[in-house]
C-alpha cells in the first residue's frame, strides 16, 4: 500500500501548482507521515541559502547535507547548528568534495556569472554519490523576478579494475518567473524539468579524473535542459495561451487563411504555365 501511496504522492506533486511546492509537500507529509523520508529525498524543492560565517561564504541546503535540523557547509565541513556526531564524508571523499566544490564554483561563474553553488558527496559500497547544487536569482530588471535552481544527483559505481566507472546522473532544473504589472496583472510562470542520463567512462588521475567526467556530464545535461526550458516555457506554454483565445477575430483569420490559399493557388497556376 505504501509504495502505491508514494506513487500517488509523486503524481500529485507533478500536478499541483509548483508555485506552492513547499506547502504541498508539508501537507502531503501531514497526510501520510510514513512517506516523510521518501518524499523529502525524492521531491525537489527550491534551494535555500545559508551563510557560513566562519569563511564568509554562502552555501545551499538540501536533504543530502542535512542531519536532523543541522546543515553541513561544504566550505568549512562544519554543521550549523553544531553537532557532536553529524554524518561526515570519509577523509578521502572530503578531499574529493573540496576539489569538486572548487571546480563547480568555477563552472558556476562561467555559466551563471553569479549565484551560489555547493557539492556534497557521500560514500556508496562500490563507489560514491553526490549532489551538485546551483542557485541564481535575477536582478529584477523589467520588473520581472526570476530564479534558477539546479539539482544534479550523480551516482558513481567504480569498476573493480579501477580504470573505468559507471555514472548515472539525474538532473532537475527549476525556473521561476514572476511579474505583477498593470497590463498583465499577476503572471507566474514556474516549475521544473527532470532528465536522466547514464554512461560508462574511463577513469584515471591525469586526463579522466572523476570530477572531469562528472563535470562534462553535468555541463552537457544543463545545456540541454536550458534549451528545453526555453522551448517549453517561452514557446509551448505561450502557444497554448494563444490557442485558447485569438486576438484577431477568427472570422478574419478564416478570411486571411482563405486569401492566403487563393494566392498560393494562383501563384502555383502561374508557375506551371511559365
Amino acid at each position, binding site marked *: *500500500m505504501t509504495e502505491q*501511496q508514494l506513487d*500517488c*504522492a509523486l*503524481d*500529485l*506533486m*507533478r*500536478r*499541483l501548482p509548483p*508555485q*506552492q511546492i513547499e506547502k504541498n509537500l*508539508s501537507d502531503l507529509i*501531514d*497526510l501520510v*507521515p510514513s512517506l516523510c523520508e521518501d518524499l523529502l529525498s525524492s521531491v525537489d524543492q527550491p534551494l535555500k541559502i545559508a551563510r557560513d560565517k566562519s569563511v564568509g561564504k554562502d552555501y545551499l541546503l538540501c536533504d543530502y547535507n542535512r542531519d536532523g535540523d543541522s546543515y553541513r557547509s561544504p566550505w568549512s565541513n562544519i554543521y550549523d547548528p553544531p553537532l557532536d556526531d553529524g554524518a561526515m564524508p570519509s577523509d578521502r571523499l572530503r578531499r574529493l568534495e573540496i*576539489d569538486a566544490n*572548487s571546480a563547480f564554483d*568555477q*563552472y558556476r561563474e*562561467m*555559466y*551563471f*556569472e553569479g549565484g551560489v553553488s555547493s557539492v556534497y558527496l557521500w560514500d556508496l559500497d562500490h563507489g560514491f554519490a553526490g549532489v551538485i547544487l546551483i542557485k*541564481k536569482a*535575477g*536582478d529584477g*530588471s*523589467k520588473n*520581472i523576478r*526570476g*530564479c534558477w535552481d539546479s539539482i544534479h544527483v550523480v551516482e558513481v559505481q567504480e569498476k573493480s579494475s579501477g580504470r573505468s566507472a559507471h555514472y548515472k546522473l539525474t538532473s532537475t532544473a527549476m*525556473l521561476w*518567473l514572476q*511579474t505583477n504589472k498593470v*497590463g*498583465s*496583472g*499577476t503572471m*507566474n510562470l514556474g516549475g521544473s*524539468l*527532470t532528465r536522466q542520463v547514464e554512461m560508462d567512462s574511463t577513469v584515471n588521475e591525469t586526463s579522466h579524473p572523476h570530477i572531469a567526467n562528472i563535470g562534462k556530464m553535468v*555541463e552537457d545535461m*544543463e545545456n540541454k535542459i536550458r534549451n528545453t526550458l*526555453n522551448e*517549453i*516555457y*517561452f514557446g*509551448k506554454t505561450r502557444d*497554448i*495561451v*494563444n*490557442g*485558447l*483565445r*485569438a*486576438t484577431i*477575430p*477568427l*472570422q478574419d483569420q478564416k478570411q486571411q487563411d482563405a486569401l492566403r490559399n487563393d494566392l498560393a493557388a494562383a501563384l502555383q497556376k502561374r508557375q506551371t504555365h511559365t
Partner: protein
Amino acid sequence: MADFDEPISDQEKVRIASDFILHAPPGEFNEVFNDVRLLVNNDTLLKEGASGAFAQYNKDQFTPCRIEGSEKQVLVTEHGDVGGSRFIDPRTKQTFKYDHLRKEASDLQPASIDETAEPWRAALESQFTAYTADHYKYGVCSVYGSSSAGQITLTTCIESHQFSPKNFWNGRWRSQWSVTFPESGGSCELTGVLKVQVHYYEDGNVQLVSQKEIKESLSVTTESQTAKNFVKIVSDAENEYQCAISENYQSMSSVTFKALRRQLPVTKTKIDWNKILGYKIGNELKNA
C-alpha cells in the same frame, strides 16, 4: 507540521484533501482525485468531508456542460447555482441537476425568469455569443441577469479550454464580467476578472498561472446599445491583457532568462574540465 507520533485529526485530513482537489489543474480533476483518494485511504471520510470541494472546483473552473436539446453548452458557475445541486441555463431558460463527479446534467426543468432583467440579459447574451465565437475557438459563454430593488445585475462568464493529456499539457481561460445599474441607466462600473492557467508535465511540472482584475466605466442607455458597449469594453480589455502576456513572454525570454544562465561561457566554447582542475593543482604548487 505534525509530529510523527501525533497523527493529524480527520478534520485536518479533510482540509488538506479538499485543498489538493481545489488546486487540480484544468482537465486533471480525476487524476488528482484518485491520488487523494488513495492517500487519504478512507472513502467515507473523503465523501462526507470533501464532496463540497468537488462542487466548488467545478464552479470555480466554469465547467462547460452539454444539455439535451441545446446546441450550445452551459457553464457551471456560482452565478448559476440555484441550490440542491441544480444550476440554471439562462439561454434555454431551464434548470438542470448536475452530477459533480460524472460531470453530467439531468432532470431538466423550466426555470423562472427575472422579467425585469431579461431584455437586458438577452441582448447581452446575443452580443457575447457572437464575441465568444469570434475569439474563442473552443469557448462557451453563459450570461446571467437578475434584479433587486430597482437595480439590475448582469454577469457574463466565458470559458475556453484545451486538454491534451497525451501530449502532457492542459490549459484554460476564464473571463467574468459584471455590472450593476439602475433601470434608468447612466454611467456605471464594469468589473472583470481574467484568469489563465496552463500546465505542461512531460518529465516535469511547469505551470503558468495568471490573473488580472479590471474596472472600467460603462454607459447604460438602451438594452441593445448597452450590450454593444459592454462587449466593446470587454474585447479591448481582453486583447490588452493577452498582448501584455505576450510582451512579458518576450521580456522573460530575451532579458530575464538570458541573465540567469548563459548558453555558453564568454569563451564561446564548453569548459575544459582538466584545465579547471589544473588551476587547483597549479595553485597548490605555487603555495608549496
